[in-house]
C-alpha cells in the first residue's frame, strides 16, 4: 500500500527487532481473543487512483453544479472566489498542520486566526470574535447555551419565525436538555419580526434570549437597531435586567451595506467569504460578543503576546474555558473547529478588501432587485413580503411544480422551495450574487414564465 512505507519485509524486520514473530503475536498481547475480529471485512479491495477518478468523477457528474445557473441561497451562497484563495489555502503548510497548541512552530495558523478575529470584529463591530465554529447553525446553538451560562435561572428563548428553520432546529436539539421553553416571534406582512411581540417578551422575568436573523430567512433586512433598543434600552441593562439579544447573520456579505446590530451575541455563517456551498459543508461559523462576556465564550481564541526575545507572537489563550483543561466545567465541548475554512475566509477578505466586499454586496443587491422586478411582472408570480431585502426574496408562483420542473429541464435551479421548510407549496426563495449575469437572470425569468 503506497501510503504505508513500512509494509512488507520492513515491518517484519521491525517486529523481529522488538521480539515478535508475527503481527498476530503482537496484537494478541493487547486484544483478547474474544474481542478480535476473525473474518474479512466486507469491503472491496483497494483501487488505483485512475479507477478512483473514474468512479468519483462519475458521481460528481451526476450533480448539477453550475453556480451562475443556480439561484439557491437560504444560508449558503454562490459568490465568486478569486483563484488565490484556493491556491494559498491549499498550501500543505496550512492544510496539513495540526491545531496550534505549540505556538513556536504554528505562528502561521495563529496569525491567520488572529486576522480572522480582527476582520470579523471589524465587520460586525463587536468586541471579540472566536477562531470559528462548525457552521452558522451550531454557532447559533452555542449562543443559546452561552446565554444560559450567563443567566442560568432564566429559561425562555424567543426565536423569530423568520430565523433559518435549520438554525432553529439545531438550537433546540442542542439546548432542550436544559429544560428551556421556546417561544416563536411572528413575522409581519412586511416580512420582518413583530416588534410588539419582542417588547412583550422582554418583560417576561424568565426571558433568557431573543433570537433574530438579519437579513432574515426570507431575505428581509430587519430593523436591528430598533430591536436592540427594545431589548437593551440602555447599555447598562445588557445581560442584567432583560434577556440577551442574539443576532444571527447567514449572509455575511450583507454586512457591507447594513449597520450591524448592537447585539449581545452576533453569530452565524461566513461561507460567503471564500468558501464553496459544497452541499452544505464544510462551512464556517463565526461567533462574536461583548468583551465582558469573553470568558463565557465557546471555542478557541488566539491572543497576541511576546516570545522569549520580546518579539510579537501569538498563541491560543483563555484555554481555561476549554474542555482539554476544564473537562466537565468547560464552556463548550468544542475542540476541532473549522480552522482551514476560516483561513479561506481570511484570505478572501484580504483579497477583496473593504471595496471589493462592498462591490460584491452592491452587485448582489442590484442583481436581486433586477430579478425581483422581472419576476413580479411575470404573470402568476407575486411578491410575498413588502419590506426591502438584501439579495434574496420570496415569491409565490402559481403552479410552481410545473414551472420549477421547466426551469430544471433548461439546466437552471431556480431557487429553494419553501415547502422543504414547512412553507407553502407555491413559495420560492431565490438568491442572487455577483456570479449571476444579466442574461442568467433573464433566462431564469423566462424559464419561470412557464407556458402561461
Amino acid at each position, binding site marked *: 500500500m503506497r501510503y504505508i512505507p513500512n509494509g512488507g519485509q520492513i515491518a517484519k524486520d521491525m517486529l523481529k527487532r522488538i521480539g515478535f514473530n508475527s503481527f498476530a503475536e503482537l496484537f494478541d498481547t*493487547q486484544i483478547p481473543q474474544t474481542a478480535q475480529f476473525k473474518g474479512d471485512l466486507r469491503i472491496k479491495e483497494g483501487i488505483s487512483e485512475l479507477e478512483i477518478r473514474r468512479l468519483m468523477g462519475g458521481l460528481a457528474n451526476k450533480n448539477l453544479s453550475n453556480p451562475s445557473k443556480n439561484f439557491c441561497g437560504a444560508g449558503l451562497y454562490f459568490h465568486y472566489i478569486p483563484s488565490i484563495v484556493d491556491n494559498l489555502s491549499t498550501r500543505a503548510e496550512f492544510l496539513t498542520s495540526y491545531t496550534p497548541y505549540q505556538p*513556536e512552530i504554528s505562528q502561521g495558523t495563529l496569525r491567520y486566526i488572529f486576522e480572522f478575529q480582527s476582520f470579523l470584529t471589524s465587520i460586525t463591530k463587536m468586541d471579540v470574535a472566536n477562531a470559528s465554529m462548525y457552521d452558522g447553525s451550531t454557532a447559533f446553538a452555542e449562543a443559546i447555551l452561552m446565554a444560559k451560562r450567563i443567566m442560568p435561572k432564566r429559561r425562555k428563548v424567543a426565536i423569530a419565525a423568520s430565523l433559518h428553520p435549520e438554525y432553529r432546529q439545531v438550537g433546540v436539539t442542542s439546548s432542550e436538555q436544559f429544560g428551556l421553553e421556546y417561544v416563536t416571534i411572528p413575522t409581519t406582512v412586511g416580512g420582518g419580526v413583530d416588534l410588539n411581540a419582542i417588547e412583550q417578551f422582554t418583560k417576561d422575568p424568565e426571558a433568557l434570549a431573543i433570537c433574530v436573523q438579519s437579513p432574515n430567512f426570507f431575505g428581509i433586512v430587519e430593523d436591528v437597531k430598533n430591536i436592540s433598543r427594545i431589548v437593551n434600552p440602555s447599555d447598562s441593562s445588557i445581560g442584567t435586567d432583560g434577556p440577551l439579544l442574539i443576532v444571527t447573520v447567514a449572509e455575511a456579505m450583507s454586512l457591507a451595506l447594513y449597520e450591524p446590530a448592537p447585539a449581545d451575541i452576533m453569530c452565524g455563517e461566513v461561507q460567503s467569504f471564500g468558501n464553496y456551498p459544497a452541499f452544505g459543508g464544510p462551512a464556517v461559523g463565526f461567533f462574536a460578543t461583548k468583551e465582558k462576556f469573553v470568558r463565557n465564550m465557546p471555542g478557541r481564541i488566539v491572543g497576541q503576546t511576546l516570545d522569549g526575545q520580546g518579539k510579537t507572537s501569538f498563541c491560543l489563550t483563555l484555554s481555561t474555558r476549554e474542555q482539554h483543561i476544564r473537562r466537565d466545567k468547560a464552556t463548550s465541548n468544542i475542540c476541532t473547529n473549522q480552522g482551514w475554512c476560516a483561513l479561506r475566509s481570511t484570505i478572501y477578505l484580504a483579497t*477583496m478588501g473593504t471595496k471589493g466586499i462592498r462591490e460584491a454586496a452592491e452587485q448582489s443587491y442590484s442583481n436581486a432587485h433586477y430579478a425581483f422586478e422581472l419576476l413580479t411582472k411575470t404573470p402568476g408570480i407575486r411578491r410575498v413580503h413588502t419590506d426591502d431585502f438584501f439579495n434574496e426574496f420570496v415569491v409565490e408562483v402559481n403552479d410552481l411544480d410545473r414551472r420549477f420542473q421547466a426551469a430544471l429541464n433548461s439546466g437552471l435551479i431556480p431557487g429553494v422551495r419553501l415547502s422543504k421548510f414547512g412553507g407553502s407549496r407555491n413559495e420560492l426563495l431565490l438568491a442572487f450574487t455577483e456570479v449571476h449575469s444579466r442574461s442568467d437572470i433573464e433566462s431564469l425569468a423566462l424559464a419561470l414564465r412557464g407556458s402561461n
Partner: protein
Amino acid sequence: MAITHEEGSLFDIHHPDKSAYKLPPLEVPSKKPTKHLRESTLGLPQVSEMDVVRHYTRLSNMNYSIDAGMYPLGSCTMKYNPKINDEISMLDGFKNIHPYQPLETAAGAIEVMGRLQDLLAEVTGLPAVSLQPAAGAHGEFTGVKVMRAYLKENGGVRRKMLIPDTAHGTNPATSTLCQYEVVRVPNGPNGYIEASDVERLMDRDTAGIMVTNPNTLGLFEKNIVEICKVVHAQGGLVYCDGANFNAVMGWSRPGDLGIDVMHLNLHKTFSTPHGGGGPGAGPICAVEKLRPYLPSPQVVQKDGAYALEYNLPKTIGRVRMAYGNFLVLVRALVYGLTLGRDGLKEASTIAVVNANYILNLLKADYHLPFGPTCLHECVFSDKNQNEFGVKTMEIAKRLMDYGFHPPTVYFPLVVPGAIMIEPTETEPLHEIDRFISAMRAIAQEAKLNPEKVRTAPHTVFVKRVDETVAAKKLILRNNSTI
C-alpha cells in the same frame, strides 16, 4: 523556504489605492438600499494581489506540517493526507452544489454519503450511521443525545455518566453539555478499566459509560466486553470514543464487543487533513435499536438507490444544517476506496508496529508507566528526567530543535508528565529512527546539560511564547484603524 520571517500585518501595508480583485461591470441597473445603512467602513485593509500572496506564503512558512515532517501527537493520528483526496473533493460536482437544490440533481452526492456510511458500518460493526456531526466532539454530543433520547423512552433519561480518568476532555465536557453529572471511574493498576469498578458505580440512575478504546494509554481495554455487560445489565448504554480507532481496523469491531454507539474522527483515522484545526467530521455509528433516534435526515437505501429520509418521528433532530462536512466525507470515501479491505487492516497493523518499535527503543531512556506493549501509541513520562530538573514541556520544546513537532504532552492525566507518542502507519522507518535518536539525545542532554533543554527551543525562529501574558493582558484583535 523563507529567508526572513519578519512579516508584518496587512494593516501596515494598506493603501486606499491598492486592490487585489476585479469584478465584471454590473450589467443591470445599479440600485442601493435606503434603510438600515452601514454607518462606517468595514475596516478591511486594501492590499495588492502580490501583497496577499506574499503575506500568506510567509505565514505558511511559519507552520510545521505533516508534509514537512513527523507529527508524533498521541491520540491525534496525524497521518499523511493523500493528495488525490483533496483533488477529488475540489471537483465542481462536489464543491459547487447546494444542499437545497433538488436532490435528483445531487444524486451523486447522496451516493457518496451512502457509500461512506456502508463502509463505516462495516468497519465498526455498527450498522446505523449518521454523517452529520462536524467533528469528534460534535459526534460525542450527537451520540450522547441519541443515548438520552433512547433512555427517555425506556424508563427515563437518568442523571449520571461514567467517565474513566483516561478520557479525552471532550467526554466529560460533552456529558455536562448533555446534562449528565460526571462520575469518575479510576483506572486499574495496569491502566485498564476494571469491570468491578464499573459494576460498583453503575446504577439505574446512570445513563452509561463513555469509554475510549483503545484508551489514551494506547491500551486495548481488556475488560470491554464485560464492562458492556455490566452497563447493559443496569439498562445503560456504552458510548465509545473512536479517536483511537486507527489501532484496530480489521482487528476488532466495536459493534461485536457490545458498544452501542461511537464516533469516528475522519480527520484522524480516515486521513482527511486537520487544516490547522478543522474542518473535521465526526460521524456516529450505532446499533440498530438506536437508529430511530439518529439525527434527521438519514441517508437510506430505497429501491436500490440512496435517498434522504426525513420521516423520523423519534429523531433527536438536527445537529447542524444541511448534511455534514460533505467535502470531508468525500475525502474519507476516497481514502476508504484507495485502501480497501486489506489496506485498512494494514494501516492499523503498521501503526501498531511503529508504536511498539518506538516504545521498545525508548524505554531504556524514558520511564514507561504501563506496558510492556501498546497499540497505536505509547505513553512515557518525564520521571527519569525530573531527577535532573527537566520536565515534559521542556523535552517537547527541545524536540523542535531536532526538527520534530512535539508529542502530546501532559495527557492522559493519569500519567504525571505524560509524553504520548503516536507515529501512525504513514511514517517511514528512517524518520522514526531519526525521531528515536532525537529523543535519546535529549535524554542525554537532560543529564549532561539540562539548561539547554530547559530553555529550548533554540533554533526555531520564535522563542518560547509567553502564554501567561497572553491570558493576562488580552489582545484578541488588531486595533489598527484604516
